C-alpha cells in the first residue's frame, strides 16, 4: 500500500499546487498571528480558514487529482495490484499531502504562536476535515463520469456542508422552536462534519457560553469529555464511510 502511495505523493508534490496551498496557509496564519496582539483572537480567524478553506481545497484538489491520475490508475489496473489497494493508495497519498500542507501551513504557526488546548484542537480538526473531505471527494469522483461533473459535485457538496446545511438547521430550529429540540440539534450537527468540527472546537473555546444551555443533554454533552470523544468518533466515521463506499463502487467500476 505504502509503496504505491509513495508514487502518488511524489506525483502530487511535483504538481506544485500543494506547495501553493501550503504557502497560502502559511502566509495567512503568520499574518494573522502577527497582526493580532492577542493570539487567541488570531486563532478565531484561523478557525474560519479551517472550517471553510480546508474542506474546499481538499475537495477540489482531491477531485482534480483523481481525474489527473486516471492514467496511473489505468496502468496499475493491468498490473497484479488489487483495486482496493490502488484507490486506497491514491486516497492516502492525497490526504497525506493535503494534511502535510495543513500541518506546515497552519499547524506549525499555531504551535509556535499559541500552543494550548485550543491550538491543538484546531490542528486536530483541520487534519480530520482534510481526511473527511478528501474521502468525500473520492466518493464523488468515483461516481461521477467526467472531470467537470466531478468538480461540480465537489463544489456543491462543499457549499452544502459549509453554508446551506446550517441555514436549514437554523430554519428547523426556528420552525420548531416550541418543541424540545436538544437531541435533534445534536443529531443534526452529527450529519455535517464541518459542524462537528466546529463543535469540537467550541468545546474548547466557548465552553463558558455552551454551559449556559438549559437542557440536561447538553450539560452532559458539553460538561464531560464525552462531547469531545463523541465528535471525534463521528468525524472518524465521516472519513471512513465515504471512503469505504468509494472503494466499493471503484471495485465494481469499468475503467
Amino acid at each position, binding site marked *: 500500500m505504502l509503496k504505491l502511495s509513495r508514487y502518488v505523493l511524489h506525483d502530487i508534490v511535483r504538481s506544485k499546487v500543494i506547495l501553493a496551498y501550503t504557502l497560502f496557509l502559511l502566509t495567512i496564519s503568520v499574518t494573522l498571528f502577527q497582526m493580532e496582539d*492577542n493570539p*487567541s*483572537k488570531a486563532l*478565531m480567524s484561523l*478557525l*474560519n480558514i479551517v*472550517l*471553510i478553506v480546508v474542506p474546499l481545497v481538499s475537495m477540489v484538489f482531491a477531485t482534480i487529482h483523481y481525474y489527473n491520475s486516471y492514467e496511473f490508475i489505468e496502468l496499475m489496473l493491468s498490473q497484479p495490484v488489487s483495486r482496493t489497494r490502488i484507490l486506497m493508495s491514491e486516497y492516502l497519498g492525497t490526504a497525506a499531502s493535503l494534511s502535510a500542507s495543513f500541518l506546515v501551513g497552519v499547524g506549525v504557526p499555531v504551535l509556535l504562536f499559541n500552543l494550548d488546548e485550543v491550538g491543538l484542537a484546531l490542528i486536530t480538526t483541520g487534519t480530520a476535515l482534510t481526511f473527511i473531505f478528501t474521502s468525500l471527494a473520492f466518493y464523488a469522483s468515483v461516481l461521477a463520469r467526467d472531470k467537470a461533473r466531478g468538480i461540480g459535485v465537489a463544489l456543491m457538496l462543499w457549499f452544502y456542508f*459549509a*453554508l446551506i446545511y*446550517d*441555514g436549514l*438547521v*437554523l430554519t428547523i*430550529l*426556528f420552525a420548531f*422552536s416550541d418543541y424540545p*429540540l*436538544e437531541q435533534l*440539534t*445534536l443529531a*443534526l*450537527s452529527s450529519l455535517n462534519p*464541518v*459542524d462537528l468540527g*466546529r*463543535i469540537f*472546537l*467550541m468545546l474548547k*473555546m*466557548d*465552553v*463558558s*457560553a*455552551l*454551559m*449556559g*444551555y*438549559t437542557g440536561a443533554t447538553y*450539560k452532559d454533552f458539553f*460538561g464531560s469529555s464525552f462531547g469531545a470523544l463523541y465528535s471525534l468518533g463521528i468525524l472518524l466515521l465521516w472519513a471512513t464511510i465515504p471512503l469505504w463506499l468509494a472503494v466499493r463502487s471503484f471495485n465494481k467500476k469499468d475503467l
Partner: protein
Amino acid sequence: MKRLSCILLSLLCLQAHAHTLTVGKGQPFATIRNAIAAAKPGDTVLVKKGTYYVNNILVTKPITLLGENMPLLHGADKYEIFTVSGNRITIKGFQLTNSGYSAMNDYAAIKVVDATNVVIEGNKIYRAYFGIHMANASNCTIRNNYLFGLTKTEQTTGNGIHLWKCNNMLVEKNEVHAHRDGIYFEFVTHSLVRNNYSEGNIRYGLHFMFSNDDQYFGNTFINNGAGVAVMYSKKVMMHRNRFLNNWGPAAYGLLLKEISDSKIEGNRFYKNTVGIQMESTSRIAASNNRFEENGWAAKVAASSMDNSFTNNNFQGNTFDIGTNGSVVLNTFNNNYWDKYEGYDRNKDGRGDVPYHPVSMYSTIIESNPNTLMLLRSFMVALLDKAEKALPSLTPENLKDDQPLLKALKL
C-alpha cells in the same frame, strides 16, 4: 493621654484577674461544659487536643474558648455544637463536625444570637448544616475559618457563614466549600467581607439580600452555582474580587437584582457563563474590571437603567454584551473590546467609529437557545456581518462611542 493609660491599666487588671481553665484527659476539667460553668468573665477555657462528644454548649459569658492543637468536637448529628449569646466571646482553634440537621431549625455548628463583639477564628467546620450562623449581632469578626459542608441539595444544605440582621461585621480570610451559599447576608449593614475563598457551593459563593452599605473585596469565587448574588440592596461596593469558572444554565459570576447605587471596580470575571447579570439595577458603575473568556461578559436586562461600564477590558468573551430589549438606558464608554475592528485616524487611542457590543447572533440565541449550536459557523458570520452593515435586530444605541484600541493595564 490620661484616658488611654487608664484604659490600658484596666485591661492589664483584667488580664491579671483572668484565669485559664484547662479541659482534657487528666486535666482539671473533663468536659467543656463544666469548665464554662466554672469560668468567670474574662477567663479562658483551654481545650486540649482530643475528641469530645458534645451537644449544644451554651456560651453566654464573656470568655474565650481556645482549642489547643485543634481538638475535635463531635456533635453526634444533634442540635448545635456552640450556641453563643452575649458580649466579648471568642471561639478559636476548634474542629467542629456533625452538628445536627433539622428541617425546622437552622442548626449550625456555631450559632450566635443577640451578641456583640464575638470573634470566631481559626476553626474548621465539617459536615455542618449551617456552619456559622449569626442573628441579631453586631461588631463581630469571623476570620480564618475553614468550612466544608454536606454536599447535598440546595434544600438540605445550609449556608457556610450565615448573617441575619447584623451590622458592623467583619468576615475575612475564610474558606467555604459545599454549602448552599458560601457566605450569606440578609439585613446586614455596614459590614466588610474580604479575602475570602468560596468554592463549589451549591447556590452562591456570596449572597446579599436586603443588605445595604456593605463592601466586599479581594475575595475569590470559583465554580459556585453563581459567584455572587446581590439582591434588593443598596450601596454595595465590590472591589478586586475574582469570579472564576461559574458555569451552568443559571450561572453568573455576579448576579445583580434590584440593586442600586453600587460600584464594581477592579474585579476579574474569568470563564463564567455570564460575567455579570443585571436585572432591574440602577446607578451601578462598573469600571476597571477584566472580563475574560466568559460566555457573555455581561447581560444587561432592559429593566436596568443608568448603569455605566467604563474603562473595562473585554477579551476573549464569546459574546460581549447581551440584552433582551431594544431600549437602552445604560452607557458604555472607553472600554477595550477585543472584537472591535475600527480604526483610529487621529491616533488618540480611541476608535473613530463606535463599537456595538451586542452581536446579532447573541440576540438570536436569546430568543432561541438551541441556535447556540450554530455559533461560529460561516453562516452566522455572514449574518453578523450583514447585521453590522444594516442593524435591524440589535439595539442601535447600545454602543461604545470611544472604544479603546489597546487593552488597559489592569
